C-alpha cells in the first residue's frame, strides 16, 4: 500500500462541503486547491469533485473534496455526496444569519445520517466583508479572530457561532476565501482531527484500490501549483 513505499504514510480522506447557496463553498475549495478566487463562480450543479493534499508532520492526507450545490432543493441529493465522508465543512455566510440556521440543520443532518465519527468543521466565510477582514493575516491560529463585534456587514457574531460549535463539538473557523485568510487552517485542522484509526479502516473499497491507482499523482493535476505554494499545509 501507499504507506509502505512512502516515508510518510498517506491516506485519503473524503470531505464534503455543505451549506446554503452562495456562502462560498466552491470558493473555499478553489482557494484551498488552486489558491485562486473567482468573483463570479458558476453555481455548482449537483456537486464538484476536487482533490488536494495536506502534509502533516506524521503523514500526508489527501482530501477528496465533494463540493455540493447549496440551493435548498439540492439538499435531497446531499446524502449521495456525504455518504462515507470522514469530514465535513459546514459553511455559512458571516453576513447572513439565515445561513447559520441552515448550517445548523446540516450539522444535525450529518450527526444523525452521516458516518459516525465524521469530523465536522463549522466555517463562517466572507470575513473580508466584515471589519475583522484582515486581523493578523497568517496568524494561522484559528482563535485569532476575537474582536468581532460590529463588522461592517457582519450579522453573525463570533461568540454565537463559536458557542454553538463548542456545544456540538465542532471545529470552528472564520475565513475569507477571497483573501485566503484561515482557509488552509481549516483543512489542516480537519486533517489533524481525523482519528488515526479511521484513516486505516474507512473507505474500504476505495482504499484497497489505491494499489491499482499506483499512487495518487495521476489524477491530481490540480495539485501542481498548490504544492509549491507557500501556504501549503506544512504543519
Amino acid at each position, binding site marked *: 500500500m501507499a504507506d509502505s513505499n512512502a516515508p510518510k504514510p498517506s491516506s485519503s480522506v473524503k470531505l464534503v462541503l455543505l451549506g446554503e447557496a452562495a456562502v462560498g463553498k466552491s470558493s473555499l475549495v478553489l482557494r484551498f486547491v488552486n489558491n485562486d478566487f473567482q468573483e463570479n463562480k*458558476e*453555481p*455548482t450543479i449537483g456537486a464538484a469533485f476536487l482533490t488536494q493534499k495536506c502534509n502533516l508532520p506524521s503523514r500526508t492526507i489527501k482530501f477528496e473534496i465533494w463540493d455540493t450545490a447549496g*440551493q435548498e432543493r*439540492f439538499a435531497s441529493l446531499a446524502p449521495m455526496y456525504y455518504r462515507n465522508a470522514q469530514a465535513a465543512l459546514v459553511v455559512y455566510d458571516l453576513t447572513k444569519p439565515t445561513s447559520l440556521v441552515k448550517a445548523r440543520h446540516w450539522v*444535525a443532518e450529518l450527526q444523525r445520517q452521516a458516518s459516525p465519527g465524521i469530523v465536522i468543521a463549522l466555517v463562517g466565510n466572507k470575513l473580508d466583508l466584515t471589519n475583522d477582514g484582515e486581523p493578523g493575516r497568517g496568524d494561522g491560529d484559528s482563535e485569532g479572530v476575537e474582536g468581532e463585534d460590529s463588522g461592517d456587514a457582519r450579522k453573525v457574531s463570533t461568540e454565537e457561532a463559536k458557542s454553538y460549535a463548542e456545544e456540538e463539538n465542532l471545529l470552528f473557523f472564520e475565513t475569507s476565501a477571497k483573501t485566503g485568510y484561515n482557509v488552509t487552517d481549516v483543512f489542516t485542522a480537519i486533517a489533524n482531527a481525523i482519528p488515526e484509526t479511521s484513516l486505516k479502516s474507512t473507505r474500504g473499497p476505495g482504499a484497497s484500490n489505491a494499489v491499482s491507482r499506483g499512487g495518487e499523482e495521476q489524477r491530481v493535476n490540480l495539485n501542481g501549483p498548490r504544492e509549491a505554494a507557500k501556504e501549503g499545509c506544512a504543519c
Partner: protein
Amino acid sequence: MLRESDIDAPSLPALLPYCLPTQSQTHALFHLALPPSLSKNGLVTLRTLRTGFRYELTPTLPSYIVDDGLQRAGIMFNISSFVQKAQSAAQQLIDPMQGLNLTNSDRNPSKASLFQSQFRLPSSQTPLFEIPAELTIPPSNVTHGGKDHDRGWHYAGRLHLSESYICFSTTTSSFAHTASTSTSSAFAGQTHGAGPSGNGFTFPLSAIRRVERLNSQNFQFSLAITTWNGIAQDQAKDKAALKERKDFREQRITIQLAGSRQACERFCDGLKKGLRGAVGNVGKLKRIIAECYSEYLLRPEEKKNAASPDAGLGVIFKYPGDPKKLRDRAKMRLWAEYLRDNGRNATLIRQPTFHKLIRVGLPNRLRGEMWELTSGSFYLRLENPTLYTDTLDKFLGQESLAIDEIEKDLNRSLPEYPGFQSQDGINRLRRVLTAYSWINPDVGYCQAMNIVVAALLIYMSEAQAFFILSAICDRLAPGYYSSTMYGTLLDQKVFESLVEKTMPILWEHLVKSDVQLSVVSLPWFLSLYINSMPLVFAFRVLDVFFVEGPKVLFQVGLAILRINGEELLDAADDGAFISVLKSYFSRLDESAHPKSENPKLRAINRFQELMVVAFKEFSAITHGTIQDLRLKNKDAVLNNIENFAKRTAIRNLGPDSKVLSPEELVSLYDRFYGVLYERQQRDHIIQEEQRRRAKASKTRASEAFTEHHDHGVEKGRVGLGPSTSLMDYDAFREFLASVSKWAISDAPPPSPRRDPSDRNSYFGSFRRSDVNLLSPWGSGPEPADHEFMQRLFRKWDVTNSSSLTLQNVVTGLAQIKGGRDIMGTITYFFELYDDDEDGKVDREGILRVSEALLFLSRRGLEGALSNSNSTTMLNGMTEADSGSLSPPVGGTVNERFLGSVSAFIRRCFEYADPDNLGTRDEAEQMTRPDAPIMSKEDPSIDSGAFAIGDDEDEEDEEDMLAFDSPSSQPNAQAKRLDLDLESVPPAMGKPAENVGRRAVSKAQSEKANVALDPSNPLHITLPTFRMVVLADELLEQFFESSFPTSLHITHGLPNTAGQSSSLTTFSSLNFSRPATLSPSGAQPGLAGAGRGLRGVLDNIVTDASRVAAEVRRRMEEAQRELEKNALPGQRDEDEEDEEDLQGPVKSTGAYGGDAERRSVRSSDRDLLDGADAGAGVTKEADGSSQSLLDTNSEQEGRVDRVNSATQRIVEFES
C-alpha cells in the same frame, strides 16, 4: 391519386381575390365540394355539403361570420373559463405530469397526453378525430421548377385533428379511444424518438388558408390544403404585386383520406368546425410568425432591408464557435432551400431531409426558431403570445424567494460568454427566469435553469426562451427542476439501470469500486450537457434533444461511457472516474481516429463519433424504454425523497416540537401532508369532472372520443415537490377531523354552507364557494365547522397568513398537548377568546366559550375523568340513586358536563366585571382588588349589573371585607382568591364541603339574568375564568386531561364509524337555530335572547329557578344541614391547599359571592332543567333529571333522541 395537374388551374386565381385577407381575421375559406361527375376539374364550385351548410363566397360571408362568430363566442367563453380555472390552479402550459407520466395510470396514460407529447401540443389540445391518410407533397416547383416528371413525395400515415391543430405523422400511432396503449405510445421515426420525429406536419388550423375537396376517380375523400405559408409577407395586400412575384408559390398539399365514407365525413365535419373556430386566430399567427427568423431569411427581394428579428444574444455578441468551422453559411443555405420548399415555421412540413439537417447541427440564426418549433414551445407561444410580457407586467416589482435565488446566480451563468458579461444579457436572463418563476411557482427557480436559459438566450428572444423553458420543465426534462428534483433523481436511476443493462462489465466495475455513477452523470442531465461539454457541442446535443426528446440525454450519456469504457474500467474511485470524463470532454473536437490512414476517417472528430455511437449503437433506447424504466423506479425514488424530506422537516422543527414525542411528530407530519395531498387530489378530480361535464354538455362533436381522464394524478405528493406546504382553513378542519372526534361534522350528508358573509370576515375571505360540488371531503368524515375551530386556526396562524405551516401546527399542538398543566390549558383557552388581547373576554366571548365547551364535549369527553364521590353525590342529589357510585358510564359524565357548562355560564356572568368604565384597565384593577365590592356601593360603577357577594351570606362578605385592609391588599387579594378557588374544590374528596356550601337564591338567578342585559356590557378576566373553571370538577378535568387527549395525533380516531350515536349531550338542548353565533355588530348581546343557542342560554338562566324551585328548596335544606357539620374542619385543609394554588394563580380581579359559590353546584341541575324547559323539550314536569340520568337504562329511547338531535345539529354545524 390526385395530381397537381388535375386541378383546374384557372379556378385558382379566380378564387384568389376572395381568399386574400382584407382584414387580418379574414377566415380561412373552407371549400368542400362534392365531386360532380360531369366535371373533370378537381375543384368544383362551392356546393352545399351533406349538412346543408351553404358556403358561398363573399356575398354571404358576413352573415356566415356573424352566425359563426356568435357561436364561437359562446364556445370561447366557455373555453376561456376552463383555461382560467386550470391556470389558477397551476399556471402551467403543459401538464407536467404528462411528460413524466408519473400518474397512477402510468401504464395507461391518457390518450390526450400521449397525443400532446407526440405532436408537442399544448395541453388544451385533445385528439378529436383521426384517420389513415396519404400525404402528397407536390414537387417544389420554385427551385426545381419545370420538373414535371417529379410527382412529388408521398407518405402514408395518419391524419389527426384536435381543437386547433391538424397533424400528420408517418408514425402509426393512434389516439382513438379504441386504440391500445401500445399503438398510442409507439413512437417511431428516425431515431425512435417521441415528439415530432416522423415525417409529416403539425399545422395550426389558423395557418390553413383553404381546404378543398378534390375530385378523385375512386370517390375517395381527397383534400387539398393550402396554407398561409409566407403570410407575414402579405402585409402589403398588394395582390398585383403578389401575382407578379414569380417566386411566390402557395404551399398546397393534398391528402387522401383512407377511411370509410362515414369516417371521412366525420373527419371533414370536424375539420370544418375547427377551421371556423380558427378564423379569429390568423392575426395572432401572423404576429408570431413575424418574429420568426425564417420569414426574414426567406424575405422577398423588396424587403431586403427589413430588420432581422431577435435571434438571440448571438446576433450582438457573436455565437459561440467559429462559424467557418461550423460551416454555418452552408447550413443556412441548405435550410433556406428546405424551408422554401417545405414551408416555414407554422407551416413547416417534416421530410427526411429535415431530420438530417438537424443532425448535422442547426445554423446559428435559425437555431432558436427550430428549437422552438421542434420542442413545441412555438405552439405554446401561439396560444398565448403575450403571456411573457403580461407576466412580467403583472408581477412587476414583486419579490419572492425564487427571485432572491435568481439574483444570486445571474452573474454566474455562462460567465465566459461575453453576452453575460453585459447588462443586456444579464437583464434578459433575469427577466426570463423571473417570469417563469411566477407562472410556475411549483418549480420557481432551480440552479441549472440559469445555465440552460443563458444558453437558450444566445439563440433566441426572451419570449421564445420563456416558452421553451416551460416546454423543458414540463415535458422534456420533467421534474428535473422541481422543488424536490424528483425527475433528476428518477432519471439518474433510469440511467443507472440502462448502464447496467447495456454495459454490464462497466457497471460491475462501478459497483465494485463503490463509484456512484450519478455523481458524474447528474450534472449532464440537469444542465442538458451545457456545462459539461464545450458549448458548441452541447448545442448540437440540444438540436437533437428538442426534436427527439429526453431519450437523447440517455443515448448521449451511454455513448460517453461506452467510448470511454476502457479507461473507466481502470478508474478506481470517483475522482479517477471524473477526471477521465473531464479530459474526454475537453478533447471532443479532436479527431476520433488520429492515426487512421483514411483522411475521411481522420476528419471525424470525437463529437461526431459520440453522436454516431449515441444514435446508432443505442438506437434501441426509445421513449418507451425510458418511460418503462421511469415507471419502474418511480416509487423507490419518491419514497426516498419523501423519507428524506420528512426526516429533515421533523428535525428542523423548532424547540416546540420537543414536547411532542417523535412518534407524534412523525404521524403529525404524515397527517399534515396527507391531508394536503388528498385535498389536492380531490380538487383535481373535481376540476376534471367539472371540465368533463361542461365539455360534454358543450360539444357533441367529440362524442365519439369520450375522453379518458385519469384520476391518478399525484400532484401535491411530497416527493413530486408539494405544490403547497400550507394548510388553509378547510384543510385544517379536515386535519382536525382526523385526530379528534369533536371535529367531525354531525351532518351525514353535506349540508349547505352558511353564507360566509354571515361570519367573521377573517374566515370569509378564503372560503371556497363551491365546495359542495362532488364530495369535497373524499372518503373521510366531513369535518365540522365550528367557531372554536376557526379560533384555533387563527391562533395557530401566527403569521396571519390564513394558512398554517407544519411548524404552526406542531407549535399549536405542542401548546395544547405538550405536557402543559391545567393552568396553561385554561390560559390557552382564555386567550383563544380574548379577541383584542386585553385580558378580557366579554359577554359575547363568554357565550362563545360555553358554546365551544359544548361543541367539544358533544361526542363525549375523553381522558381521565374521575368519578369521585363528590360528583356522584352531586348528581345523585335529587336522584337518591347515589347508588350510582358504581362508575358512571360516559354518557352520564357527559351529561353532567352539560350541567357544568351551564353553571359555567352562570358563574361567568355572576363574577364578571362590568365594562362600563371603558377606561378601566387591567392595571387599575390590580390596584383595586375590591372593585366589585366597591361597585356595589358606588352607584357610578354599579349600573345594575349583578353585584358579587350577596346579602344572604353575610359572614362570607365579612370575611372578604376583613381582608380588605389597604395595607395588605396584594396578599389579601391573593388569599381571597385562593379561598375562592378552594372553597369550590378542584380537588376531589371533599364532598362535605361541596354539599355543605350550597345556597341558591332566586335573587341571584334574576341577577344573573340581568347580566345578560346587553345594555350592561361586562367581561371576565383570566383569573375569573380560571376560578370559574376550577370551580367545577368536570370542567377542571376537561381542561386538565380531556381536551388535550381529545387530539389523537398518533393513532387517529379509533373508529369514526357510528360517531353520531355517541352524540348524547345535545339531546336535551333543543336547538331551534344554528348555534354558531354571528357576531352581529360590535354591540355584544344585541343578537340577544331568543336566537339560537344564545336564546337557550338566556333561558337557562331565566328559567332555572322557576323550573327547579321545588328541587332547590329541598336541596337547600339538606345543604344547611351539611354545612353546619362540615364547615369547621374544612378550613384547615383550605389553608394548605392555598399554598399549592398560589403559584399559578395570579389574581387580578376580585371575586366575591361565597354564597353564590356555594350554591353553584346545585344550580347546575337547575340550569339544566331550565334548559330543557326553555327549549321546550317535552318531559314530565319534574322528571327532567331522571330523563337525563337514566340514559343507560333506556338505550333505545336515546337513539331516537340522538337522531333528532343529529338533525338539529346539522344546522348547528352548517
